[in-house]
């Protein structure tokens, strides 16, 4: 079997007295869609911060395409082929939609004109072409989510880290986003999708699922196995019924 694209090895992160991640490991293969699920506070965003270089872990290593990347600056990790979106959308508000995307496209473009051309194609690909020249601050939440993905794609990543891309979307929009992630996977772009709710979609799009709970990896497997795992049901899937919401 070939080496995985991404290997997170025994990563631990503590914030003061809170253990956000304890000895977490996972692997992602080329073109694979891995769903990273877990309740709020499980450590999904922290793990994304570690992989993208925003946060240095207290222990553990991350290998991407065979190279150890812990300690690399975020821009270097981005250029190596890992792109991410943010759970709370963070557009460059005063920049146009095209320029938001062009920032990432600069990594591969030879000129700013070429970067803007590439950005326009991506903006069209995610269906924002009508808004291309407007400031990003004028977009709705749904559109901002798409802009997050468009910016990430401009890096031409081999791996996309999607932090709660479904949150705040209507069911129809979620289906659209799911289709989108599947299409990327068909093009060979792997994805780690951090998702709190919407199990229906998790089951549909993911090749494999890793479950985090309170900073620990409590289960891993294909969708069918995860649905049947008693630990998962107790920690997570069963909880909403118990809470009555």
């Amino acid at each position, binding site marked *: 079997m070939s080496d995985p694209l991404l290997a997170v090895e025994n990563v631990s992160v503590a914030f003061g007295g809170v253990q956000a991640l304890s000895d977490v490991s996972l692997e992602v293969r080329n073109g694979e869609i891995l769903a990273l699920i877990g309740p709020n506070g499980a450590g999904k965003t922290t793990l994304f911060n570690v992989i*993208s*270089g*925003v946060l240095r872990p207290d222990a553990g290593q991350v290998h991407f395409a065979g190279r150890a990347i812990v300690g690399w*600056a*975020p*821009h270097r*990790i*981005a*250029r190596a082929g890992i*792109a*991410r979106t*943010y759970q709370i959308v*963070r*557009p*460059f*508000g*005063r*920049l146009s939609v095209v*320029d938001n995307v*062009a*920032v*990432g496209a*600069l*990594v591969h473009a030879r*000129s*700013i004109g070429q*970067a803007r051309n590439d950005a326009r194609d991506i903006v069209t690909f995610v269906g924002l072409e009508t808004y291309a020249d407007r400031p990003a601050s004028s977009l709705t939440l749904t559109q901002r989510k798409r802009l997050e993905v468009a*910016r*990430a794609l*401009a*890096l031409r990543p081999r791996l996309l880290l999607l932090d709660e891309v479904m949150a705040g979307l209507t069911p129809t929009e979620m289906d659209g986003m799911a289709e989108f992630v599947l299409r990327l996977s068909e093009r060979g772009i792997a994805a780690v999708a951090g998702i709190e709710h919407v199990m229906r979609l998790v089951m549909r799009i993911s090749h494999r699922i890793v479950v985090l709970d309170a900073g620990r990896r409590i289960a891993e497997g294909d969708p069918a196995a995860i649905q049947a795992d008693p630990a998962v049901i107790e920690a997570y899937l069963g909880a909403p019924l118990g809470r009555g919401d």
Partner: protein
Amino acid sequence: MKRGAAAIAALVIVLLILAPLRLNGYAMDLTYITVLSIGLAYGWNIISGYAGYFSFGQIAFFGVGAYATGLLVADLHWYWVPAALVGGVAACALAIPLGYVMLRLRGPFFAMGMFGMAQMVRVLVTAIPATGSGSGLFLPPGSGITGVYYWTLAVCLGAIALTMWIEGSAFGLRLRALREDEQVAATLGVETTRAKITAFGLSALIPGLLGGGYALFLTYIEPDAVFSSRLDLQSIVMAILGGLGTVWGPLVGGLVMTQISEVLWARFPEIYLMIFGGLLVALLIALPRGIVPAIAARFARRRGA
């Protein structure tokens, strides 16, 4: 609209080039100080307008440029133009290590940190015995104001050209991205530290080049005169009034501010500062993003309608 603005800018520049032929005495000094402040505003606009790092200490680089020039001219008998060039390079060379440390601070911490840094640079420069310490440094009488004025105007036009280039370049896009959200810019592949330090270096080069001319203009330099918080603040207000992070903001803000200030001073000499302050506050409340963005928005609306 673009063509109209370019025509006005060209006219202003031609008038500024011709100014020494018709003006002398007070009017020439005033024109020189206006162009100088506008140049300083362009320097400040790069790090603070485009990169979003508000600095209250860029005047340190002006002072370093002035003193470097003063020393080369007074002690080593250099001709002042190469001395002023060296002053600019010295300011830029100082800014690079300084920026590496200071640009780790953000928001008000950077602003205040730069204020403190400027004081430190001032103390260090005046601690060198050759600078005459606190008592100042005499320069031999120079070429008169015309030479200094053209030097300053040339640096100012260079700063405008540099800003135009930044506005349209990949570097400018990276600066604006990190101004909006530095962490996101980094995860989109922007080498933020390098972009910030480059911007900071350019924002020091311009006042550094201008400082040498100012030393010649004064012919006698002392710490208070060249580390002038008045010049610093004035140029900052010009850039903000005209429009932060825009190509024409510092020029428009600088011309508007100087004209208002002069008219008020001539008519109400006793209370002009009070009226000027009030007017400035009113303008900034009415046009919070500055004059240039307000005009641009109005033209965009008209075109859209």
